[in-house]
Protein backbone atom coordinates (compact mmCIF):
# COMPACT_ATOMS: atom_id res chain seq x y z
CA UNK A 1 0.00 0.00 0.00
CA UNK A 2 1.08 3.53 -0.65
CA UNK A 3 2.06 4.51 2.87
CA UNK A 4 2.27 8.16 3.70
CA UNK A 5 3.84 9.49 6.83
CA UNK A 6 0.98 11.43 8.29
CA UNK A 7 0.60 12.67 11.80
CA UNK A 8 -3.16 12.48 11.40
CA UNK A 9 -3.29 8.96 10.05
CA UNK A 10 -5.98 6.91 11.59
CA UNK A 11 -8.45 9.79 11.73
CA UNK A 12 -11.40 9.75 9.42
CA UNK A 13 -12.35 12.56 7.08
CA UNK A 14 -15.76 10.98 6.51
CA UNK A 15 -17.67 8.65 8.83
CA UNK A 16 -20.94 7.22 7.66
CA UNK A 17 -22.81 5.22 10.25
CA UNK A 18 -25.69 2.88 9.40
CA UNK A 19 -26.98 5.19 6.69
CA UNK A 20 -30.28 4.21 5.14
CA UNK A 21 -31.97 6.10 2.36
CA UNK A 22 -34.94 4.68 0.49
CA UNK A 23 -36.49 5.67 -2.83
CA UNK A 24 -39.39 4.01 -4.59
CA UNK A 25 -37.16 1.71 -6.67
CA UNK A 26 -33.84 1.84 -4.87
CA UNK A 27 -32.43 1.95 -1.37
CA UNK A 28 -29.13 2.50 0.34
CA UNK A 29 -29.31 0.05 3.21
CA UNK A 30 -27.40 0.38 6.44
CA UNK A 31 -24.17 1.68 4.88
CA UNK A 32 -21.27 2.19 7.24
CA UNK A 33 -18.12 3.63 5.72
CA UNK A 34 -15.10 5.38 7.22
CA UNK A 35 -12.92 7.29 4.78
CA UNK A 36 -9.39 7.67 6.11
CA UNK A 37 -7.81 11.08 6.16
CA UNK A 38 -4.74 11.46 3.96
CA UNK A 39 -5.63 8.85 1.34
CA UNK A 40 -7.45 8.46 -1.93
CA UNK A 41 -10.54 6.32 -1.59
CA UNK A 42 -12.22 5.10 -4.72
CA UNK A 43 -15.96 4.57 -4.53
CA UNK A 44 -16.87 2.06 -7.20
CA UNK A 45 -20.05 0.45 -8.29
CA UNK A 46 -22.18 0.00 -11.36
CA UNK A 47 -24.49 2.77 -12.52
CA UNK A 48 -27.35 2.97 -10.06
CA UNK A 49 -25.42 1.29 -7.25
CA UNK A 50 -25.94 4.32 -5.02
CA UNK A 51 -22.63 6.18 -5.36
CA UNK A 52 -24.16 9.60 -6.07
CA UNK A 53 -26.81 9.11 -3.40
CA UNK A 54 -24.11 8.34 -0.86
CA UNK A 55 -22.09 11.38 -1.92
CA UNK A 56 -25.15 13.62 -1.64
CA UNK A 57 -25.66 12.32 1.87
CA UNK A 58 -22.04 13.21 2.67
CA UNK A 59 -22.74 16.75 1.52
CA UNK A 60 -26.00 17.01 3.43
CA UNK A 61 -27.95 17.30 0.20
CA UNK A 62 -30.11 14.28 0.86
CA UNK A 63 -31.98 13.52 4.04
CA UNK A 64 -31.38 9.96 5.22
CA UNK A 65 -34.10 7.80 6.71
CA UNK A 66 -31.64 6.64 9.36
CA UNK A 67 -27.97 6.92 10.20
CA UNK A 68 -25.45 9.67 10.61
CA UNK A 69 -22.77 11.43 8.57
CA UNK A 70 -19.74 12.87 10.34
CA UNK A 71 -17.08 14.97 8.65
CA UNK A 72 -13.69 15.59 10.27
CA UNK A 73 -15.00 13.97 13.43
CA UNK A 74 -18.07 16.19 13.77
CA UNK A 75 -21.69 15.47 12.92
CA UNK A 76 -22.70 17.12 9.66
CA UNK A 77 -26.21 17.92 10.86
CA UNK A 78 -26.31 21.47 12.17
CA UNK A 79 -22.75 22.28 11.08
CA UNK A 80 -23.08 22.01 7.30
CA UNK A 81 -21.86 25.54 6.70
CA UNK A 82 -18.62 25.22 8.68
CA UNK A 83 -17.82 21.65 7.63
CA UNK A 84 -18.57 22.09 3.93
CA UNK A 85 -16.17 25.00 3.80
CA UNK A 86 -13.45 22.37 4.17
CA UNK A 87 -14.75 20.36 1.21
CA UNK A 88 -14.10 20.79 -2.49
CA UNK A 89 -16.84 19.15 -4.53
CA UNK A 90 -16.70 18.19 -8.18
CA UNK A 91 -20.02 16.93 -9.53
CA UNK A 92 -20.54 14.53 -12.41
CA UNK A 93 -21.95 17.35 -14.48
CA UNK A 94 -21.65 21.13 -14.52
CA UNK A 95 -24.31 22.86 -12.43
CA UNK A 96 -22.83 26.31 -12.73
CA UNK A 97 -24.76 29.15 -14.34
CA UNK A 98 -24.14 28.48 -18.02
CA UNK A 99 -24.89 32.03 -19.16
CA UNK A 100 -22.22 33.53 -16.91
CA UNK A 101 -18.56 33.99 -17.70
CA UNK A 102 -15.95 32.13 -15.64
CA UNK A 103 -15.06 35.44 -14.00
CA UNK A 104 -18.70 36.13 -13.05
CA UNK A 105 -19.12 32.58 -11.75
CA UNK A 106 -16.03 33.12 -9.63
CA UNK A 107 -17.72 36.21 -8.15
CA UNK A 108 -20.65 33.97 -7.21
CA UNK A 109 -18.54 31.15 -5.79
CA UNK A 110 -15.55 32.75 -4.06
CA UNK A 111 -17.35 34.80 -1.34
CA UNK A 112 -18.72 31.61 0.20
CA UNK A 113 -15.19 30.52 1.18
CA UNK A 114 -13.15 32.38 3.75
CA UNK A 115 -9.95 30.69 2.57
CA UNK A 116 -10.49 31.50 -1.10
CA UNK A 117 -7.10 31.87 -2.79
CA UNK A 118 -7.46 34.14 -5.82
CA UNK A 119 -3.85 33.62 -6.95
CA UNK A 120 -4.23 29.87 -6.81
CA UNK A 121 -7.45 30.08 -8.81
CA UNK A 122 -5.73 32.18 -11.47
CA UNK A 123 -2.91 29.63 -11.59
CA UNK A 124 -5.37 26.79 -12.15
CA UNK A 125 -7.14 28.75 -14.88
CA UNK A 126 -3.82 29.28 -16.63
CA UNK A 127 -2.83 25.65 -16.21
CA UNK A 128 -6.17 24.46 -17.60
CA UNK A 129 -6.09 27.11 -20.36
CA UNK A 130 -9.37 28.63 -19.24
CA UNK A 131 -10.07 32.29 -19.94
CA UNK A 132 -12.01 34.17 -17.24
CA UNK A 133 -13.94 35.87 -20.03
CA UNK A 134 -15.21 32.64 -21.57
CA UNK A 135 -18.85 31.86 -20.87
CA UNK A 136 -19.43 28.52 -19.20
CA UNK A 137 -21.87 27.54 -21.95
CA UNK A 138 -19.04 27.71 -24.49
CA UNK A 139 -16.87 25.18 -22.63
CA UNK A 140 -16.61 21.51 -23.54
CA UNK A 141 -17.41 18.84 -20.95
CA UNK A 142 -13.74 18.40 -20.21
CA UNK A 143 -13.21 22.14 -19.79
CA UNK A 144 -16.21 22.36 -17.46
CA UNK A 145 -14.72 19.58 -15.39
CA UNK A 146 -11.43 21.49 -15.25
CA UNK A 147 -13.30 24.59 -14.14
CA UNK A 148 -15.11 22.65 -11.41
CA UNK A 149 -11.76 21.32 -10.30
CA UNK A 150 -10.23 24.82 -10.28
CA UNK A 151 -13.08 26.04 -8.05
CA UNK A 152 -12.85 23.00 -5.77
CA UNK A 153 -9.08 23.35 -5.33
CA UNK A 154 -8.89 27.11 -4.77
CA UNK A 155 -10.21 27.38 -1.24
CA UNK A 156 -7.74 25.09 0.51
CA UNK A 157 -10.18 22.23 0.86
CA UNK A 158 -8.95 19.38 3.03
CA UNK A 159 -11.37 16.91 1.49
CA UNK A 160 -12.02 16.63 -2.22
CA UNK A 161 -15.19 14.75 -3.14
CA UNK A 162 -15.51 13.91 -6.81
CA UNK A 163 -18.60 12.26 -8.25
CA UNK A 164 -17.75 10.46 -11.50
CA UNK A 165 -15.31 13.17 -12.60
CA UNK A 166 -13.86 11.11 -15.45
CA UNK A 167 -17.16 9.93 -16.97
CA UNK A 168 -17.37 10.98 -20.60
CA UNK A 169 -13.88 12.47 -20.68
CA UNK A 170 -11.20 11.61 -23.21
CA UNK A 171 -8.25 9.47 -22.03
CA UNK A 172 -5.81 12.40 -22.26
CA UNK A 173 -7.72 14.54 -19.80
CA UNK A 174 -8.53 11.55 -17.60
CA UNK A 175 -4.81 10.91 -17.28
CA UNK A 176 -4.15 14.61 -16.64
CA UNK A 177 -6.79 14.63 -13.91
CA UNK A 178 -5.21 11.62 -12.22
CA UNK A 179 -1.83 13.37 -12.34
CA UNK A 180 -3.37 16.43 -10.64
CA UNK A 181 -4.86 14.24 -7.92
CA UNK A 182 -1.53 12.53 -7.41
CA UNK A 183 0.09 15.98 -7.04
CA UNK A 184 -2.53 16.99 -4.50
CA UNK A 185 -1.77 13.95 -2.42
CA UNK A 186 1.75 15.26 -1.85
CA UNK A 187 0.00 17.33 0.80
CA UNK A 188 -0.42 14.69 3.48
CA UNK A 189 -3.50 16.29 5.00
CA UNK A 190 -5.43 15.98 1.77
CA UNK A 191 -8.16 13.37 1.43
CA UNK A 192 -9.85 12.45 -1.83
CA UNK A 193 -13.02 10.47 -2.34
CA UNK A 194 -13.37 9.61 -5.98
CA UNK A 195 -16.47 7.87 -7.30
CA UNK A 196 -16.22 6.17 -10.64
CA UNK A 197 -17.24 3.15 -12.63
CA UNK A 198 -14.04 3.40 -14.71
CA UNK A 199 -12.01 1.11 -12.52
CA UNK A 200 -8.72 1.53 -14.38
CA UNK A 201 -8.54 5.07 -12.96
CA UNK A 202 -8.55 3.64 -9.46
CA UNK A 203 -5.98 0.97 -10.33
CA UNK A 204 -3.62 3.90 -10.87
CA UNK A 205 -4.25 6.16 -7.90
CA UNK A 206 -6.52 4.76 -5.19
CA UNK A 207 -5.29 3.68 -1.79
CA UNK A 208 -8.63 2.29 -0.64
CA UNK A 209 -11.54 0.87 -2.56
CA UNK A 210 -15.14 1.02 -1.38
CA UNK A 211 -17.45 -1.10 -3.50
CA UNK A 212 -21.16 -0.36 -3.49
CA UNK A 213 -23.44 -2.99 -4.92
CA UNK A 214 -27.21 -2.57 -5.09
CA UNK A 215 -27.21 -0.01 -2.32
CA UNK A 216 -25.02 -1.98 0.04
CA UNK A 217 -21.34 -1.71 0.81
CA UNK A 218 -19.82 -4.95 -0.50
CA UNK A 219 -16.36 -4.12 0.85
CA UNK A 220 -14.08 -1.27 1.85
CA UNK A 221 -10.45 -2.23 2.00
CA UNK A 222 -7.03 -1.13 0.88
CA UNK A 223 -6.41 -1.76 -2.80
CA UNK A 224 -3.70 -4.29 -2.00
CA UNK A 225 -5.96 -6.20 0.37
CA UNK A 226 -8.63 -6.33 -2.32
CA UNK A 227 -6.19 -7.71 -4.88
CA UNK A 228 -4.83 -10.20 -2.35
CA UNK A 229 -8.23 -11.44 -1.33
CA UNK A 230 -10.09 -11.58 -4.63
CA UNK A 231 -9.21 -13.83 -7.55
CA UNK A 232 -10.67 -15.03 -10.80
CA UNK A 233 -10.98 -18.78 -11.13
CA UNK A 234 -11.44 -20.39 -14.55
CA UNK A 235 -11.97 -24.07 -15.02
CA UNK A 236 -13.98 -26.98 -16.22
CA UNK A 237 -17.65 -27.30 -15.30
CA UNK A 238 -16.97 -30.68 -13.73
CA UNK A 239 -15.20 -28.92 -10.84
CA UNK A 240 -18.37 -27.17 -9.74
CA UNK A 241 -19.70 -29.15 -6.83
CA UNK A 242 -21.49 -27.54 -3.89
CA UNK A 243 -18.30 -27.02 -1.85
CA UNK A 244 -16.50 -25.31 -4.70
CA UNK A 245 -19.48 -23.11 -5.51
CA UNK A 246 -19.47 -21.92 -1.92
CA UNK A 247 -16.09 -20.32 -2.59
CA UNK A 248 -17.46 -17.95 -5.18
CA UNK A 249 -19.10 -14.55 -4.96
CA UNK A 250 -20.30 -14.69 -8.56
CA UNK A 251 -20.03 -17.21 -11.32
CA UNK A 252 -20.61 -17.34 -15.07
CA UNK A 253 -21.01 -20.70 -16.69
CA UNK A 254 -20.81 -21.52 -20.38
CA UNK A 255 -20.52 -24.67 -22.48
CA UNK A 256 -16.72 -24.48 -22.35
CA UNK A 257 -16.32 -23.95 -18.62
CA UNK A 258 -16.84 -21.43 -15.84
CA UNK A 259 -15.40 -18.12 -14.74
CA UNK A 260 -15.90 -17.21 -11.11
CA UNK A 261 -14.92 -14.59 -8.59
CA UNK A 262 -13.74 -15.64 -5.18
CA UNK A 263 -13.18 -13.42 -2.20
CA UNK A 264 -11.06 -16.10 -0.57
CA UNK A 265 -8.08 -16.48 -2.84
CA UNK A 266 -6.06 -18.60 -0.40
CA UNK A 267 -8.82 -21.17 0.03
CA UNK A 268 -9.41 -21.26 -3.73
CA UNK A 269 -5.73 -21.90 -4.31
CA UNK A 270 -5.66 -24.65 -1.70
CA UNK A 271 -8.60 -26.48 -3.23
CA UNK A 272 -8.28 -25.73 -6.93
CA UNK A 273 -4.70 -24.77 -7.78
CA UNK A 274 -4.06 -28.04 -9.54
CA UNK A 275 -7.32 -28.14 -11.50
CA UNK A 276 -8.17 -24.56 -12.42
CA UNK A 277 -6.51 -21.31 -13.49
CA UNK A 278 -6.44 -18.79 -10.66
CA UNK A 279 -5.58 -15.22 -11.59
CA UNK A 280 -5.49 -11.80 -10.02
CA UNK A 281 -8.89 -10.15 -10.32
CA UNK A 282 -9.04 -6.60 -11.63
CA UNK A 283 -11.50 -4.15 -10.10
CA UNK A 284 -13.50 -4.50 -13.28
CA UNK A 285 -13.66 -8.29 -12.81
CA UNK A 286 -14.82 -7.80 -9.24
CA UNK A 287 -17.49 -5.31 -10.26
CA UNK A 288 -18.64 -7.34 -13.24
CA UNK A 289 -18.87 -10.73 -11.59
CA UNK A 290 -20.43 -9.36 -8.43
CA UNK A 291 -23.04 -7.45 -10.39
CA UNK A 292 -23.65 -9.76 -13.34
CA UNK A 293 -22.40 -13.14 -12.22
CA UNK A 294 -25.02 -15.52 -10.87
CA UNK A 295 -24.65 -15.81 -7.11
CA UNK A 296 -22.78 -19.02 -6.61
CA UNK A 297 -24.62 -20.01 -3.44
CA UNK A 298 -27.62 -19.21 -1.33
Amino acid at each position, binding site marked *: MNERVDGRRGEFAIEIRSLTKRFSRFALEDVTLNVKQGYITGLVGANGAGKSTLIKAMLG*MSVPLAGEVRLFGEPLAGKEDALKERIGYV*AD*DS*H*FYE*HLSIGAMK*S*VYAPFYRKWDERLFRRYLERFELSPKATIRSLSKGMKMKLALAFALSHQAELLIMDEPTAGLDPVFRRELLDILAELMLDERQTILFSTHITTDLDRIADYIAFLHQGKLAFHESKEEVFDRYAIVRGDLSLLDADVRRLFVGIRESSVGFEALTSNRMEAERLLAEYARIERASLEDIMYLTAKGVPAHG
Partner: protein
Amino acid sequence: MVNLIRKDIIALKWYWLFVLGYGAVFGLIARSPHSPLIIVMLPAIMLTIFVSNIELRNKSMLFIGSLPVKRSQIVRAKYASTFLYLTIGIAMALLMQLISRSFPDEVFTLNGFVLAIGTAVALLYSSVYYPLHYLLGPRNSSIISVIMIFLSSALAASLNKSIDLSRIALPSKLQVLIGLPLAGLVLLYVSYRVSLAILSRRDIEG
Protein backbone atom coordinates in the same frame (compact mmCIF):
# COMPACT_ATOMS: atom_id res chain seq x y z
CA MET B 1 -27.15 34.76 3.48
CA VAL B 2 -25.75 37.87 1.84
CA ASN B 3 -23.66 35.66 -0.46
CA LEU B 4 -26.75 33.74 -1.51
CA ILE B 5 -28.56 36.96 -2.38
CA ARG B 6 -25.49 38.24 -4.22
CA LYS B 7 -25.42 34.95 -6.14
CA ASP B 8 -28.94 35.60 -7.44
CA ILE B 9 -28.12 39.21 -8.30
CA ILE B 10 -25.14 38.10 -10.41
CA ALA B 11 -27.02 35.18 -11.95
CA LEU B 12 -29.81 37.51 -13.06
CA LYS B 13 -27.32 39.34 -15.29
CA TRP B 14 -29.24 40.86 -18.21
CA TYR B 15 -32.61 39.78 -16.81
CA TRP B 16 -32.47 43.05 -14.87
CA LEU B 17 -32.92 44.81 -18.20
CA PHE B 18 -36.24 43.02 -18.76
CA VAL B 19 -37.52 44.38 -15.47
CA LEU B 20 -36.31 47.90 -16.24
CA GLY B 21 -37.80 47.58 -19.73
CA TYR B 22 -41.19 46.51 -18.39
CA GLY B 23 -41.02 49.35 -15.88
CA ALA B 24 -40.38 51.82 -18.68
CA VAL B 25 -43.19 50.38 -20.81
CA PHE B 26 -45.79 50.57 -18.02
CA GLY B 27 -44.48 53.89 -16.72
CA LEU B 28 -43.90 55.79 -19.95
CA ILE B 29 -45.59 54.14 -22.92
CA ALA B 30 -48.56 51.94 -22.04
CA ARG B 31 -49.83 53.92 -19.08
CA SER B 32 -52.99 52.98 -17.24
CA PRO B 33 -54.41 53.72 -13.79
CA HIS B 34 -52.77 50.47 -12.66
CA SER B 35 -49.30 51.39 -13.93
CA PRO B 36 -47.86 52.56 -10.56
CA LEU B 37 -49.12 49.43 -8.83
CA ILE B 38 -47.79 47.15 -11.57
CA ILE B 39 -44.37 48.81 -11.44
CA VAL B 40 -44.16 48.46 -7.64
CA MET B 41 -44.91 44.76 -7.59
CA LEU B 42 -43.50 43.71 -10.97
CA PRO B 43 -39.82 43.20 -9.97
CA ALA B 44 -40.77 40.98 -7.02
CA ILE B 45 -42.84 38.76 -9.26
CA MET B 46 -40.62 38.75 -12.36
CA LEU B 47 -37.28 38.36 -10.62
CA THR B 48 -38.54 35.54 -8.41
CA ILE B 49 -39.62 33.66 -11.53
CA PHE B 50 -36.42 34.49 -13.43
CA VAL B 51 -34.18 33.23 -10.62
CA SER B 52 -36.21 30.02 -10.33
CA ASN B 53 -36.03 29.44 -14.07
CA ILE B 54 -32.26 30.05 -14.13
CA GLU B 55 -31.82 27.55 -11.30
CA LEU B 56 -34.06 25.04 -13.02
CA ARG B 57 -32.28 25.35 -16.37
CA ASN B 58 -28.83 24.90 -14.85
CA LYS B 59 -29.86 22.44 -12.12
CA SER B 60 -28.12 24.91 -9.85
CA MET B 61 -29.67 23.63 -6.65
CA LEU B 62 -27.11 20.84 -6.88
CA PHE B 63 -24.38 23.48 -6.94
CA ILE B 64 -26.03 25.56 -4.21
CA GLY B 65 -26.48 22.47 -2.03
CA SER B 66 -22.74 21.82 -2.17
CA LEU B 67 -21.88 25.33 -0.93
CA PRO B 68 -21.04 25.90 2.74
CA VAL B 69 -24.52 27.04 3.70
CA LYS B 70 -27.33 25.61 5.77
CA ARG B 71 -30.71 24.82 4.30
CA SER B 72 -32.23 27.46 6.56
CA GLN B 73 -29.90 30.07 5.02
CA ILE B 74 -30.97 29.06 1.51
CA VAL B 75 -34.63 29.56 2.41
CA ARG B 76 -34.00 32.77 4.35
CA ALA B 77 -32.08 34.28 1.43
CA LYS B 78 -34.98 33.61 -0.92
CA TYR B 79 -37.43 35.37 1.37
CA ALA B 80 -35.02 38.25 2.02
CA SER B 81 -34.69 38.74 -1.74
CA THR B 82 -38.39 39.65 -1.82
CA PHE B 83 -37.61 42.84 0.10
CA LEU B 84 -34.77 43.70 -2.27
CA TYR B 85 -37.00 43.20 -5.31
CA LEU B 86 -39.79 45.19 -3.67
CA THR B 87 -37.40 48.06 -2.95
CA ILE B 88 -36.38 48.04 -6.61
CA GLY B 89 -40.05 48.19 -7.62
CA ILE B 90 -40.72 51.13 -5.34
CA ALA B 91 -37.59 52.94 -6.59
CA MET B 92 -38.68 52.36 -10.19
CA ALA B 93 -42.16 53.69 -9.45
CA LEU B 94 -40.70 56.79 -7.77
CA LEU B 95 -38.47 57.35 -10.79
CA MET B 96 -41.45 57.07 -13.14
CA GLN B 97 -43.36 59.56 -11.02
CA LEU B 98 -40.46 62.01 -11.22
CA ILE B 99 -40.31 61.59 -14.97
CA SER B 100 -44.09 61.99 -15.30
CA ARG B 101 -43.85 65.44 -13.68
CA SER B 102 -42.14 66.61 -16.84
CA PHE B 103 -45.36 65.82 -18.68
CA PRO B 104 -48.17 67.76 -16.92
CA ASP B 105 -50.91 66.09 -18.97
CA GLU B 106 -49.90 62.63 -17.86
CA VAL B 107 -51.25 61.23 -14.59
CA PHE B 108 -49.13 58.84 -12.58
CA THR B 109 -50.49 58.50 -9.08
CA LEU B 110 -48.06 56.89 -6.73
CA ASN B 111 -49.41 57.24 -3.22
CA GLY B 112 -49.25 55.39 0.05
CA PHE B 113 -52.25 53.35 -0.87
CA VAL B 114 -50.63 52.06 -4.06
CA LEU B 115 -47.46 51.31 -2.13
CA ALA B 116 -49.42 49.40 0.51
CA ILE B 117 -51.25 47.29 -2.05
CA GLY B 118 -48.09 46.71 -4.11
CA THR B 119 -46.16 45.65 -1.03
CA ALA B 120 -48.95 43.37 0.15
CA VAL B 121 -49.27 41.71 -3.26
CA ALA B 122 -45.50 41.20 -3.58
CA LEU B 123 -45.34 39.65 -0.09
CA LEU B 124 -48.41 37.56 -0.80
CA TYR B 125 -46.83 36.34 -4.02
CA SER B 126 -43.64 35.19 -2.29
CA SER B 127 -45.66 33.70 0.55
CA VAL B 128 -47.53 31.46 -1.84
CA TYR B 129 -44.73 30.87 -4.35
CA TYR B 130 -41.90 29.58 -2.17
CA PRO B 131 -43.74 26.86 -0.21
CA LEU B 132 -45.06 25.54 -3.54
CA HIS B 133 -41.57 25.82 -5.02
CA TYR B 134 -40.05 23.73 -2.25
CA LEU B 135 -42.98 21.34 -2.02
CA LEU B 136 -43.31 20.54 -5.72
CA GLY B 137 -39.68 20.97 -6.71
CA PRO B 138 -38.16 23.27 -9.30
CA ARG B 139 -39.62 21.43 -12.28
CA ASN B 140 -43.19 22.19 -11.33
CA SER B 141 -42.33 25.71 -10.27
CA SER B 142 -42.29 26.98 -13.84
CA ILE B 143 -45.94 25.94 -14.17
CA ILE B 144 -46.66 27.53 -10.82
CA SER B 145 -45.00 30.73 -12.01
CA VAL B 146 -47.33 31.12 -14.97
CA ILE B 147 -50.39 30.63 -12.79
CA MET B 148 -49.01 32.98 -10.14
CA ILE B 149 -48.49 35.82 -12.61
CA PHE B 150 -52.13 35.71 -13.66
CA LEU B 151 -53.36 35.43 -10.08
CA SER B 152 -51.23 38.36 -8.91
CA SER B 153 -52.24 40.60 -11.79
CA ALA B 154 -55.90 39.79 -11.34
CA LEU B 155 -55.71 40.37 -7.59
CA ALA B 156 -53.82 43.64 -7.90
CA ALA B 157 -56.13 45.00 -10.57
CA SER B 158 -59.27 44.10 -8.67
CA LEU B 159 -57.93 45.57 -5.45
CA ASN B 160 -57.00 48.82 -7.11
CA LYS B 161 -60.32 49.09 -8.85
CA SER B 162 -62.67 48.22 -6.04
CA ILE B 163 -61.28 50.50 -3.36
CA ASP B 164 -62.01 54.18 -3.81
CA LEU B 165 -59.73 56.31 -1.64
CA SER B 166 -62.15 59.26 -1.45
CA ARG B 167 -64.72 57.09 0.27
CA ILE B 168 -62.38 55.88 2.94
CA ALA B 169 -62.26 57.76 6.21
CA LEU B 170 -58.83 58.61 7.61
CA PRO B 171 -58.67 55.86 10.27
CA SER B 172 -59.64 53.26 7.63
CA LYS B 173 -57.08 54.59 5.21
CA LEU B 174 -54.43 54.38 7.88
CA GLN B 175 -55.55 50.89 8.71
CA VAL B 176 -55.17 49.91 5.08
CA LEU B 177 -51.80 51.63 4.74
CA ILE B 178 -50.41 49.82 7.76
CA GLY B 179 -52.63 46.78 7.87
CA LEU B 180 -52.03 45.49 4.35
CA PRO B 181 -48.22 45.44 4.47
CA LEU B 182 -48.36 44.14 8.04
CA ALA B 183 -50.65 41.30 7.01
CA GLY B 184 -48.24 40.60 4.13
CA LEU B 185 -45.33 40.45 6.56
CA VAL B 186 -47.14 38.07 8.90
CA LEU B 187 -48.08 35.88 5.95
CA LEU B 188 -44.48 35.94 4.69
CA TYR B 189 -43.17 34.84 8.08
CA VAL B 190 -45.65 31.96 8.30
CA SER B 191 -44.73 31.01 4.72
CA TYR B 192 -41.01 31.11 5.61
CA ARG B 193 -41.56 28.68 8.49
CA VAL B 194 -43.54 26.37 6.20
CA SER B 195 -40.83 26.47 3.47
CA LEU B 196 -38.15 25.78 6.05
CA ALA B 197 -40.08 22.78 7.37
CA ILE B 198 -40.52 21.47 3.81
CA LEU B 199 -36.88 21.88 2.72
CA SER B 200 -35.48 20.42 5.93
CA ARG B 201 -37.27 17.16 5.11
CA ARG B 202 -36.52 17.02 1.39
CA ASP B 203 -33.49 16.21 -0.70
CA ILE B 204 -31.87 19.06 -2.57
CA GLU B 205 -32.46 18.34 -6.25
CA GLY B 206 -31.66 20.08 -9.49
